[in-house]
């Protein structure tokens, strides 16, 4: 078990291993995305209240979940990178931020598109929307800080500190926003109370969540491999690899 982790921290070992995993992850993500999209958009029955417009949920809900899940992955990687100075963890943490920002932006955009037919407005200062917007700002700050520092290892450690500060702050921000919106909100919040979802609608959602996870893993590995090659471009095995292709 431990030897596996020790091996994993070697960039070369990780590069070879991830090369073997990547096709499996990518193809299963593509297949599940296709199945889930078809099932969600065509097979699943229309909602008795929202008609067909609820179907955007099959994109919106997985991306909203992923926006938080990616932050957790990034925080774990940042912690490992800060404590054990593991290069691979720094690479993973660095590649999580743009992916998390995209998932958050997608959740916000699909939420706005869904909000227009449902609530009659694109934006509501609701607790969940507001905390998602703040999460997007946190991701953008992370990307900005990484871009501003030239040395990649210094950038990784500075971003690691910022990520862990964010881990302490996200629950505080989230609950303060919830409290704020219950103080300020009118009747809009009650429209969120959905009837419990029928299994025929839930299954495609479940498949989409798994597909998003696999897609995230595949893209993360792909980006990490590129970054490892760039960082290790001076080492013998990378030159070897470049000479062979």
């Amino acid at each position, binding site marked *: 078990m431990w030897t596996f982790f020790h091996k994993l921290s070697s960039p070369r070992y990780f590069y070879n291993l991830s090369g073997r995993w990547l096709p499996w992850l990518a193809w299963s993500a593509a297949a599940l995305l296709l199945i889930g999209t078809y099932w969600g958009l065509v097979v699943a029955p229309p909602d008795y209240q929202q008609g067909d417009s609820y179907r955007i949920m099959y994109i919106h809900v997985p991306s909203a979940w992923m926006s938080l899940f990616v932050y957790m992955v990034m925080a774990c990687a940042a912690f490992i990178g800060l404590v054990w100075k593991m290069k691979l963890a720094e690479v993973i943490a660095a590649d999580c931020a743009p992916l998390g920002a995209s998932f958050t932006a997608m959740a916000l955009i699909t939420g706005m598109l869904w909000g227009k037919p449902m609530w009659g407005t694109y934006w509501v200062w609701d607790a969940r929307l507001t905390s998602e917007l*703040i999460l997007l*700002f*946190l991701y*953008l*700050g992370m990307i*900005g*800080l990484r871009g*501003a*520092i030239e040395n990649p290892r*210094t950038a990784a*450690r*500075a971003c690691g*500190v*910022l990520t*862990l*500060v*964010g881990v*302490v*702050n996200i629950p*505080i*921000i989230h609950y*303060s*926003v919830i*409290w*704020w919106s219950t*103080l300020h909100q009118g009747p809009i919040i009650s429209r969120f109370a959905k009837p419990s979802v029928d299994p025929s609608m839930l299954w495609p959602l479940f498949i989409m969540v798994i597909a998003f996870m696999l897609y995230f893993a595949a893209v993360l590995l792909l980006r990490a491999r590129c970054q490892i090659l760039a960082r290790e471009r001076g080492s013998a095995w990378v030159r070897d690899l470049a000479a062979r292709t």
Partner: protein
Amino acid sequence: MNQPRVLSAYMMLLRRDVTLAYRNRAELANPPLFFVLVVSLLPLGIGPDSALLGKIAPGAVWVVALLATLLSLDNIFRSDFEDGALELLLISPQPMPVLVLAKVTAHWLIAGLPLLIFALPLALMLYLPWRALPVLIATLALGTPVLSLIGAIGVALTVGLRRGGLLLALLVLPLYIPVLIFATSAVSAAAAGLPVSGQLAIMAALLILALTLAPLAAAAALRIALN
């Protein structure tokens, strides 16, 4: 044995920073001036309607206080970074979080405390009800140290960068949101005659949390920025 030395290092650094700021009085006046200027721009932009101004006064005063703090944050570490004093602090035998805390205390005395004084006439000019004034001062007293503490983390992360100004706003402002929410809701509740002890208790909790954790994070960030 060790305790008094740490304490005296804290006091010495605090006295040094306050003296340095006092010698440079023109810069000392900038954050309060900014605060006064922007708050007095608001009625010019919104109109002199007293009911509307009274309603937005808590939020207006607090948002501008946030920006004024942000403007002065860079002073915490910038000049010491440029003349190398910060590196000497890092290699000193005293624990770095304590030294960071001393610098943050100095920053609060220089930039945060004047806001408390200037907020009184400004709140009256914005027609905030009289009974909300003590609560406004209480939230500023509890909230501005949190702003300085969280800001110190952001400055420590960006101190080595040439153009850190806008980035600092992006890093720090999202983390200021809880303070803003609880402070303005306390002042609004006080203006409406409602109890505010809950909000003030949460702000005190935020202050204690920031006081214990922020110096550690800022010290770690300084070590990264300076190696």
